[in-house]
């Protein structure tokens, strides 16, 4: 029963408070206490909640999870795990291992351009003024049990600060690896601040390395100052008994530009809660998603775009391919406030079902209080196009490859929007492998390593099929 878990969480909180509060400024301590009370009151979301109607956490919360309040003493040579080179794609890798920043003993890294990055726990000590200004300012918008629990509990995560007028020339890749011999309950808190007219590309990967069940509840807050540009890529490749709740809050100031991708390649239960506040004129958000699910997998994408100021644009494209008994949810809520005239808001959700047992629940929801707006939405659920299948097969291409070509073509609309070519190629490769059933859990993320690097040429090497 999930009440067992709730009790466990409650007891552990009291017992481990001194560890949780360890680095915190007083204000944060107070925030945690409040958040914990909120969690006790709100509890885990259930299907009685409208926003959780189609994602039932009951089964996964019934499992027994272990909580750790300090990192294990084991030595991890993360450099070895992630020692990989992708030509033309130079990145800064920052990793979390079972929820803990790998080099948390070290001070935060300061790049020559002034960008600061490192452990969230460490940032609490080193930069309390920045933390206090932004921490929980954006996430508080969506009060639910999981977010409150995260605020109360999360001890570590990633902190990134880009000062004004800086273009981080290297992509930052945050890799979240789960690899523990028991069932883990992990809560991370990430805070990303991007200054005026600055630019950041962030790749956020969630990967499992073993076949244990785990539950990750991550909250990421991204603050974008005026004219800031953020490209955010989420890649999820987890085992089939892992649950991941990824809540990401983007706060956008005037003339800021966001491009976001949520690419779910594998996982037991994945929920992406993407909430965007367009709180400055002329800001723009492109929100994309791709989910490839089979077996009993479940992926839920919730996108909420709050057009709070006039003259902003949002554009959503979410596509999914579902096989077997898998299920997917897409809820796209667009709110256009009274003063948000000249809003452009578009939303598209397309699904292909490969099996008659797979299910999609798609719900677009436009809530418009301004009168001078352009909004559109559309959701489709269909099969692969019979005419196209016949055309392809009439050229001698097998049913299997014909399907592969069409599935890939369907997914490519999302992939083709990725503007960093090496990253696009890498994701493209992962998607092809996934569609062929060749994606291993340990093929982690964008820069998967340990010399596992294999170039997959989709240009049809038949010997592989």
């Amino acid at each position, binding site marked *: 029963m999930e009440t067992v878990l709730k009790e466990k969480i409650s007891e552990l909180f009291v017992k481990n408070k001194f560890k949780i509060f360890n680095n915190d400024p007083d204000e944060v301590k107070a925030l945690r206490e409040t958040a914990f009370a909120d969690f006790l009151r709100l509890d885990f979301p259930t299907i009685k909640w409208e926003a959780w109607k189609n994602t039932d956490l009951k089964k996964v919360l019934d499992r027994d999870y272990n909580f750790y309040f300090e990192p294990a003493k084991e030595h991890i040579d993360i450099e070895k795990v992630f020692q990989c080179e992708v030509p033309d794609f130079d990145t800064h890798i920052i990793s979390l291992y079972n929820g803990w920043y790998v080099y948390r003993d070290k001070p935060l890294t300061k790049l020559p351009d002034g960008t600061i990055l490192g452990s969230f726990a460490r940032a609490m000590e080193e930069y309390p003024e920045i933390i206090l200004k932004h921490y929980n300012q954006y996430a508080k918008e969506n009060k639910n049990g999981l977010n409150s629990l995260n605020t109360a509990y999360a001890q570590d995560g990633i902190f990134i600060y880009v000062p004004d007028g800086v273009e981080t020339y290297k992509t930052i890749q945050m890799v979240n690896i789960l690899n523990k011999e028991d069932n883990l309950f992990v809560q991370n808190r990430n805070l990303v601040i991007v200054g005026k007219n600055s630019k950041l590309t962030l790749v956020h990967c969630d990967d499992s390395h073993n076949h244990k069940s785990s539950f990750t509840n991550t909250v990421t807050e991204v603050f974008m100052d005026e004219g800031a540009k953020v490209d955010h890529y989420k890649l999820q490749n987890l085992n089939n008994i892992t649950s991941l709740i990824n809540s990401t809050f983007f706060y956008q100031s005037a003339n800021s530009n966001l491009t976001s991708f949520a690419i779910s390649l594998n996982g037991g239960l994945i929920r992406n809660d993407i909430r965007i506040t367009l709180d400055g004129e002329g800001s723009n958000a492109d929100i994309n998603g791709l989910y490839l699910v089979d077996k009993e997998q479940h992926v839920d994408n919730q996108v909420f775009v709050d057009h709070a100021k006039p003259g902003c644009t949002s554009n959503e494209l979410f596509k999914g391919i579902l096989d077997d008994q898998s299920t997917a949810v897409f809820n796209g809520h667009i709110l256009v406030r009274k003063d948000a005239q000249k809003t452009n808001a578009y939303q598209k959700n397309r699904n292909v079902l490969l099996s008659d047992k797979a299910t999609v629940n798609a719900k677009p929801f436009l809530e418009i209080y301004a009168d001078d707006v352009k909004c559109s939405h559309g959701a489709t659920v269909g099969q692969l196009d019979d005419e196209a299948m016949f*055309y*392809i097969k*009439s050229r*001698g*291409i097998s049913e299997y490859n014909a399907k592969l070509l069409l599935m890939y073509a369907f997914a490519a*609309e999302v992939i083709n929007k990725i503007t960093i070519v090496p990253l696009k190629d890498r994701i493209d490769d992962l998607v092809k492998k996934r569609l062929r059933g060749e994606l291993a859990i340990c093929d982690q993320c964008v820069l998967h390593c340990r010399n596992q690097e294999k170039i997959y040429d989709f240009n049809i090497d038949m010997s592989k099929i």
Partner: protein
Amino acid sequence: MLKIKNLHVSIEGKEILIGLNLEINAGEVHAIMGPNGTGKSTLASVITGKEGYEVTEGEVIYMGHDLLTLSTEERALEGIFLGFQYPVEIPGVSMINFLRTAINEHRKYKGLDPIGASEFLAKMEEKRKLLEIHDKLTTRSVNEGFSGGEKKRNEIFQMAMLEPKLAILDETDSGLDIDALKVVAKGVNSLKTKDNATLVITHYQRLLDYIIPDFVHVLNNGKIIKSGGKELAFELEEKGYEWLKEV
């Protein structure tokens, strides 16, 4: 090569072909003519194995084997090609990827290794020029955004790449201007050998000025009502189909 005997075909219980007979030998060009809605495209669909067509009677023998037991892709691998009346747009699948996949499936079927990149590109270049296809089209998605004429030329281009034994061209001339028609005909003629055969389906005689048939058949109400040499096409052009219907 192809022997069709007493073929009866229904779609959703409605009989479209009613006892059709046709024999095509290697080296021959046949034309099937006839008014709209007489079963011409149904014949093409049945030969290529499209779903939804029920053969209630008769047989189709191809290279000595029962064709109707094979899947669409097996038929293609055995050398049957259909030039579509309405080529399908496949967004996201590049022409290059599509053709390479198809060629490699054919090679695999014959026990050959996949085609090398340079060999493939050289072949594509050669055939592309033959059909006067802009090189930009080969990097685009299959048929996506192609004009009507480009789509039809692209069908013959694919035919040239796949080198079928039996090519069926379903209304390939429709929607083509005279220059495009000449290009298509030039392509088809240059691919002709003594070992392959072509079945041209059309309801205008126009195409047959450029692709000279050895045999012309008139299809009406689900069966062939008259066969003859190429002169039959001229006669049809002059007199229309009505005089035959009365026979």
